[in-house]
């Protein structure tokens, strides 16, 4: 029993690559709709292959940091990236450290002042 257009179209994404289905080969000559569908898949796959040859725009300075990468003690750009990413964390930690130091200082000051008054 011949396959329906719905069944044929379900296997076209594979057929565009391997052309293994005899059912599809039999169906296509008599079906302009499915033939057009196959043409779209072919165009799509050809377009994807073409994309592979088109580089996208890289960030400015990337080539320089890559070229310098092996010739520095530590990968500077990586460190910069790490710092930039964790900036909010460093800020919060800094504030917490500042707060803790302030609280300790205030406690010490109060203690000394209490002793001075008692004396």
């Amino acid at each position: 029993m011949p396959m329906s257009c719905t069944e044929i179209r379900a296997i076209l994404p594979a057929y565009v690559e391997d052309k293994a289905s005899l059912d599809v080969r039999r169906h296509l000559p008599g079906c302009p709709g499915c033939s057009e569908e196959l043409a779209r898949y072919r165009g799509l796959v050809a377009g994807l292959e073409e994309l592979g040859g088109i580089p996208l725009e890289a960030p400015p300075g990337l080539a320089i940091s890559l070229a310098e990468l092996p010739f520095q003690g530590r990968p500077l750009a990586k460190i910069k990236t790490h710092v930039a990413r964790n900036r909010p964390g460093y800020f919060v930690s800094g504030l917490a450290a500042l707060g803790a130091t302030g609280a300790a200082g205030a406690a010490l000051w109060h203690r000394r002042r209490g002793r001075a008054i008692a004396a």
Partner: protein
Amino acid sequence: MRGQKKVRERSLTELVSAETVERCKQGDRAAWDALVEATYREVYTLCLRVLRDEQEAADATQDTYLKVWRGIKGFRGDAAFTTWLYRVAMNAALTRNRGNSRRRAIEVAAEPEALVALPASDSTEAAAGARVELGVLETALASLPEHYRVAVVLRDVYGRSTAEVAEALGISETAAKVRVHRARKKLKSMVYPDDSSPEE
């Protein structure tokens, strides 16, 4: 169709000569500069297409070149240098893809100059196929769900075999095929807005 991958790798190979690779093995800084300059855009692009995050892609590109620098002395030239470079880049991008869930979606457009300079394909199959606008295709690719996008990028954009895709993603070959086919189907419905065929 898979022949175009060989053309791309050959053109890159011409830019990275065996002599350049040999000089890099000796620690020649000028040769390393030349190697980076000839290849970094392609490596960054591969990483960006897998990760869809500019910062992640730049980091994966750095991971790639660090590994290449550390491993180049052991590179014996059994395969083309660029084949090895692509493999290292693919692994670096996939490692970051697996390990980092913090990702922001970005809209990426192909370089207009590159699109203008693109020669018309003369393959029979492409001639028999419907012409696709590459800028539209790049945008559609970026908006695919991650598991479909990575599979179709490796298979159709970079011409890796189904076995290689399966190995890289840690899935069976059958699962890799299914992902690629579903990705093509989704892409087709995005690229052709009048498309009426049912989606999976």
